[in-house]
């Protein structure tokens, strides 16, 4: 079958890293990602199905991988070669449409009894992502055995599949996975009855979905969105941000929203909750600087190695928490995050965030578009496999 394959090749990895540092997305032209004809993934048992992707999104973590920027932390928990793509809506062989929940938890690995986290529904915290019947891989799209959304077929465990309502478009369905990330990132630290001001740093897919999630689940919380580009600013406001500020304007915007004072460049108060959807040095430093004493920072954007002054975290006793993937949400009565994401996609009309689709052959253009989505007025870029020949 035709697929984009990411192979282990140190020279190509190095080339991608250099190219990606010149311009986002350039790693696709020189790195380990290539369009190839590969064997179909093998179905390991009756609990598994073949999924033929219809749309498969390009995520920030995919871009980091393609551009050689992903942390070496992932080395033992992925397996090569893998076919990327974990934001997937596809068809089962019986014609039913499904959305993939890509986390490869104990159940998918045939591990019984499951680890403590999987047993309580928090599959994103699975202890066994490098063990069991599958090769290592924290998600479909990073595991050599399962295939991924950037190929014509992948295999999925029954616990990874969510049926798509008939009135859901493919564009709406492909947004469910990133929306689930945003919902989890928001709900992990949100205190709806107490939080007065929340800040969302970044207005790409995760940032915009986080704004929608806060608006949907966060009561009357005042949302300050930090957005760089005009389309992002417009969408941030449309999705429920009360204030939209540029990166240079953030501290002043938070000061105004919270009624805080300043000492030098420091706020004496600040936001109750900050959701960092960027995950770099600057965004984390900003998150800490605009958080109030005793505030909470949720790190949703995938970080790598960052260098940041943690004095504010220490002095203001800020709680910093990661927000990876999804599972169940205690704040929502223990419901699965994916169920909440379906609800939010529908309520907020998030299919509008799908800006462009490309066939697999044009993957270099697609990745370039995704890497420069903000400045090009786009949000989510996806591969469209609906017209691919299935052989």
């Amino acid at each position: 079958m035709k697929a984009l394959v990411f192979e282990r090749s140190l020279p190509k990895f190095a080339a991608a890293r250099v190219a990606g540092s010149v311009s986002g997305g350039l790693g696709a032209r020189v790195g380990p990602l290539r369009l190839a004809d590969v064997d179909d993934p093998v179905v390991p048992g009756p609990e598994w199905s073949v999924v033929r992707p219809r749309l498969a999104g390009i995520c920030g973590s995919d871009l980091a991988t393609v551009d050689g920027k992903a942390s070496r932390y992932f080395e033992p928990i992925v397996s090569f070669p893998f076919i990327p793509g974990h934001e997937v809506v596809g068809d089962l062989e019986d014609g039913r449409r499904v959305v993939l929940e890509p986390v490869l938890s104990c159940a998918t690995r045939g591990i019984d009894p499951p680890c403590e986290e999987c047993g309580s529904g928090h599959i994103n915290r699975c202890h066994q992502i490098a063990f069991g019947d599958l090769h290592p891989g924290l998600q479909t799209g990073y595991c050599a055995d399962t295939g991924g959304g950037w190929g014509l077929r992948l295999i999925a465990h029954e616990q990874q599949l969510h049926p798509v309502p008939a009135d859901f478009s493919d564009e709406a369905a492909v947004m469910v996975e990133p929306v689930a990330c945003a919902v989890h990132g928001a709900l992990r630290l949100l205190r709806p009855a107490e939080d007065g001001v929340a800040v969302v740093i970044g207005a790409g897919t995760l940032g915009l979905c986080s704004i929608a999630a806060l608006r949907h689940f966060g009561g009357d919380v005042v949302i300050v969105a930090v957005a760089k580009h005009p389309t992002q600013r417009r969408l941030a406001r449309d999705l429920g941000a009360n204030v939209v500020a540029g990166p240079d304007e953030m501290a002043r915007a938070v000061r105004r929203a919270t009624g805080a004072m300043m000492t030098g460049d420091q706020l004496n108060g600040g936001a109750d909750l900050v959701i960092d959807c960027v995950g770099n040095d600057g965004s984390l430093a900003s998150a800490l600087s605009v958080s109030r004493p005793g505030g909470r920072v949720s790190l949703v954007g995938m970080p790598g190695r960052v260098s940041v002054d943690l004095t504010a975290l220490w002095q203001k006793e800020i709680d910093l928490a990661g927000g990876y993937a999804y599972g169940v949400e205690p704040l929502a009565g223990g419901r699965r995050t994916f169920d909440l994401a379906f609800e939010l996609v529908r309520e907020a009309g998030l299919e509008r965030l799908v800006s462009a689709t490309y066939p697999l052959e044009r993957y270099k253009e697609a990745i370039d578009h995704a890497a420069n989505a903000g400045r090009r007025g786009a949000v989510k870029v996806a591969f469209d496999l609906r017209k691919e020949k299935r052989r």
Partner: protein
Amino acid sequence: MPRPGFVLDVDRSTPPTLFWHGEGFRLERLPTGSRVVYPPEPVEALGDPDDAIRQALLHPLGDSRPLPDLLSAGMKLTIAFDDVSLPLPPMERPDNRQRVIEVVLDMAAAAGVDDVVLIAALALHRRMTESELRHALGDRVYDAFAPHGLLLQHDAEDPAALVLLGETDQGEEVELNRRAVESDLLVYVNINLVAMDGGHKSVATGLASYRSLRHHHNVRTMLHSRSFMDQERSALHSSNWRMGRFIAASGVKIFQIETTLNTDTFPSAFGFLQRREWEWNGRDRASFLAVSKTLDRTPDRMRRSIFQAIKSPHRMTSVQAGEVEAVHAATTANVYRQHLVEVDGQADVLTFGLPYICPYNVNSVMNPILVMCLGLGYFFNLYRGKPLVRPGGVVIMSHPTPWAFHPVHHPSYIDFFEEVLADTTDPIEIEKTYEERFATDDWYRHLYRTSHAYHGVHPFYMWYWGAHALDHLGGVIIVGGDPRAVRRMGFKPASTLRDALEMAEDVVGPEPTVTHFHCPPMAMADVR
């Protein structure tokens, strides 16, 4: 004998016209048939201003007694004076305020008055620095009062230093500086640069609180002031007059001293700014070229420093003292004597160049909001009768309009520009949605009281100052401005005057009539 102002009809022989362009100039060729409104030449200054001051205090106007008769041992005397916003540019020493206050203090000393306090009448402006106070008052006055805590700056946010006198018959609350109200005599020392300055506005605005000011510093008042420079047709003036009469009726005793200046505005190095272009001699041309070339090569900060260091040679042309309204009537006549130019009819397009300075950026940065205020607030309103441009017409103004703010002086301006103008430029909507939050923001209040920041609400007032123009005009174009900053304010940027005139035709139609309001120096159009 100084020549009066006049209106020049531009023909093919007319040399290019000088436009201010912030901290620089542009020479622009206006279309044939345009009109240029030239100000009167500087009127003659008083030969002996100190003696004139003394005579004014001894022979007051209205029903006031001479100042020495109002002074006695044991009394409480407060002398309030205009702040750093006047005059423009700051004048060469000695400043009018110094001259007047020294005479007043001499008379107070002669009468045995020893409870004397000086108050800078800031209203919601920033606090003055020591060097600014020394410049305005002179070292002798400063050193005699400041070290003893007797030189104060009005604090419109100090509840303990304010007193609510009551309300006018229109329900306008009058809340003033407590020391001024509780004094046996309040002497107010003015510099009246334009027709709006002085009169009851001095105390009713300069020593008031936000609670009081909001009754006339609002959009409705500005929309009903046509113009706010014309006392007969100014709702701003009327409100201040109601408050002033209420203050007098409340028992506050005011002795008003007003001084006027001529328009000899720039030192000899900038002499070409004072002359009409076709009368430039070789020295003027050489100075213009030398100054322009030098400025072109000078970094922004240094250019700003050069201009802000200018001390104007303008001199006192009159001084009058006594009862507020009688004094102000005489002052206004003297201001008009210097400023008024008769102009027949309105044009489709009004052009002017904006200088580097306005009342709110002395020793500071002319930010975009102040550009708007200077152009559409002050320049547009420098008329009596009707505006120089017809309803639905276009104003073209020249200024670099950088996206730049003084972080100490104008903190709330930055927020206003980033948050408010990003949402709306409609003064009514701005007033309704945002004013109260900015006006009551504790951070701005803290900076106003303890640092050198304008009050949180001040950028709103700047925007309201242009409300009449925004309501009247069909479009505003800024030549040579930062396009992002210009667009943020809802205006259109143009690279050249020619481009701007073509863009204006989209609004007013082809072959528009054009009037250029020539500045410097300052003038006021009497439009028939």
